């Protein structure tokens, strides 16, 4: 008797989970179907398309008016450069906060904590006007340039990452550096040759998180970038599809899949750190 009821509960659990799974997969399945459907429209879309083929993908790669590959490349390039520099600067910044005794250390950490609370995009007007002014003096760093948007992202990336990095560095025992000093290493050598290799896991996690966050950023990119060949994927894709769902749906779906898959894979690599609460809300959520 007890057993049977237990089985019923199990079955109910599976049923509920499957309902939520249908909810979770609903948009993804339709996107996949549309990407393979040569009709390229939302009208009368069927879940399983007749004559499925890769026409939408071909169209995507040969479209000069909407250079999808350039947008994708821009996004990857900007995210990669931002993540690389941000992680390097964060590692540098976190190290003295973790190891050295100096005046203003506590205050410095506290100020960083306070600053990173305010999302950078709140100051979008000021950032736009700043680069409008820079443009007059230094056009290579002005509006509609990749160096400008990378610099902006770097400014926003330091705060929270420094805290996470410092927390990790605190767990590495100082005796390792002391041993290095005895062997004649300078302070910087001890940091570079002893500590950095040990901090590889956190460096990798922060790199991936920063990469994803930069890749998904829309608002600042849309303010700073304003020409077809400079857009990131987020800005380009939005312009490509808004109000054109009736006749670009298939191509858009193909683009969405290609744009999303690398990020999904990267995300799966780091998702276990979210469970630890380590990176609560660092990317989204």
């Amino acid at each position: 008797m007890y057993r049977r009821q237990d089985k019923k509960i199990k079955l109910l659990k599976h049923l509920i989970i499957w309902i939520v799974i249908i909810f979770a997969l609903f948009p993804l399945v339709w996107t996949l179907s549309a990407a393979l459907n040569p009709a390229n429209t939302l009208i009368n879309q069927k879940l399983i398309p007749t004559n499925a083929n890769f026409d939408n993908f071909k169209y995507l790669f040969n479209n000069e008016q909407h250079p999808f590959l350039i947008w994708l490349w821009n996004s990857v390039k900007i995210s990669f450069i931002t993540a690389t520099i941000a992680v390097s600067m964060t590692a540098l910044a976190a190290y003295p906060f973790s190891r050295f005794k100096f005046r203003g250390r506590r205050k410095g950490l506290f100020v960083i904590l306070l600053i990173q609370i305010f999302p950078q995009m709140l100051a979008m007007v000021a950032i736009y006007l700043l680069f409008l002014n820079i443009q007059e003096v230094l056009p290579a760093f002005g509006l509609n340039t990749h160096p400008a948007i990378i610099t902006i992202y770097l400014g926003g990336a330091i705060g929270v990452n420094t805290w996470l990095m410092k927390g990790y560095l605190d767990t590495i025992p100082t005796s390792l550096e002391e041993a290095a000093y005895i062997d004649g290493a300078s302070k910087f050598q001890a940091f570079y040759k002893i500590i950095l290799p040990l901090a590889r896991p956190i460096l990798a996690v922060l790199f991936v998180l920063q990469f994803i966050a930069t890749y998904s950023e829309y608002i600042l990119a849309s303010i700073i970038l304003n020409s077809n060949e400079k857009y990131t994927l987020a800005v380009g894709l939005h312009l490509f599809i808004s109000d054109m769902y009736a006749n670009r749906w298939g191509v858009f779906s193909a683009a969405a899949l290609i744009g999303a898959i690398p990020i999904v894979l990267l995300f799966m690599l780091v998702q276990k750190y979210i469970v630890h609460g380590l990176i609560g809300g660092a990317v989204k959520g």
Partner: protein
Amino acid sequence: MSFWKNNFLYLAKIIFLSILDALAVWSATILFTEHKYIFLTILIVVTAIINFIYLSKKAYPLRYIFPGTFFMILLVVYPIFYTVYVSFTNYGTGHILSKDQVIEQLENRYYLPGDSQDFSYEAFKLPNEKEYAILLNDKQGNLYLAINQNIEEINAGDPRLRDPDGDGTIDQVKNYKRLSRGDLLKNLSTLQNLEIPFNDNILKMKSLNAFSLYRQQYKYVASEDKILDIKNNVEYFPKKGSFASSEGEKLLPGFRTFLGWENYLTLLTDERVQGPFLRVFLWTFEWAILSVVTTFALGLFMAILLNDESLRFKKIYRVILILPYALPAFISVLIWRGLLNTEVGVVNQILQTLSLDTIPWLQSVFWSRFALIVINLWLGFPYMMLISLGALQSIPNDLYEAAAIDGATGWQRFKNITLPLILVSIGPLLISSFAFNFNNFNVIYLFNEGGPPIVGAQTPAGGTDILISYTYRLSFESGRGADFGLASAVSIIIFMITAVITWFNFKYTGALEEVKENV
């Protein structure tokens, strides 16, 4: 060999600093010649600080901290202060230039007086260059020669006027060659823009046949801070960023000026702005609260279902359920927008095949908001599920065993053990999630650009706009031009709310005390 090895870093540093200083000197000369003194000062100060940090032993820790903080100060701290400043000004379309720039522009405007004197002319041009000489005749026999803005009276026998073929027309002035009628037309656009100063007035081309005396229309009187319209004899005084006459007529363009609290007062008291602003303000809170509650409810529920050792396919379920969170949000939202498209979207098609009414997902305020909550539930529940799973595992099992002995029902166990303990450990994350959704621009804007529009709103405020998307649209989208001042005022309000939420979060978790103890 070992010398080089030991001193490599030191040498690299010296080389790096030398290059940096050389670049700074080069930029400084450019800035100096262009009179950009503010940028010049910043450049000098920053360069000096960098040199100090990397040369002085005292500043050693700063060598590590500097690169990161430099970007943070330039692109987070400075913009925050600049936003505060802009929120007290009228910066925006029609008020982009400074007052001095506007005065300069106005003083360069000329008009043709009714009694103006015409000059017949002949134009001469340097071969292969855009340099002109104009020979003018005021029809009373006086000749004038204008070369490069310099004009002088000459007599007919001036040696610079050459007529080698002796036919009575002058073919050359110095090296300048005479322009035939056809050449004249080719050079017309440049010639039309020539402005030759002449007795406080200006000589400008009036028609193809004549130059005429134009008079400066506006003059700035510094002692009385006013613009004088010489043509119409009207005085204009600066008022709220424009030169305005006593009858209220304004000269364009306006200039940037300090307005005090006016932008904030507009938001709170101007009827056409205040109504929509309050709607946006309230919806922002509703949106953030509903988002947190719905995602947390579903996330926790799924976590409890999955937190069962004996459940089959547990790992596969988990991976599938995380998928929505793993996708870049901007892509998911654009996909949802397609699925919910009113005319051709899949959801409405399904409703039709079930012979139900289609729903105006993007056109009705209620359904738009409803759709946004569902989309955000889809985007956010996996995160809540992940953190709830982590928290559930830390609840000691003997609590449940004790409860079972006391005969507690499943619901009682959830209400009295699970929920309170979970809330303690992930409460701060819920507040962070609230703060995040409060500014969740991507979902709101990419789904419906803040629309549908509110009828009769003077500023671009839509039915689903939250404060941050409202700021964005005020600055960068409005068909009526950008209003950076008002947008910055909204930004500052968001800053304050964020500060309050954070203060609450810190107080709730005691995070500040923890920080103070641990650093």
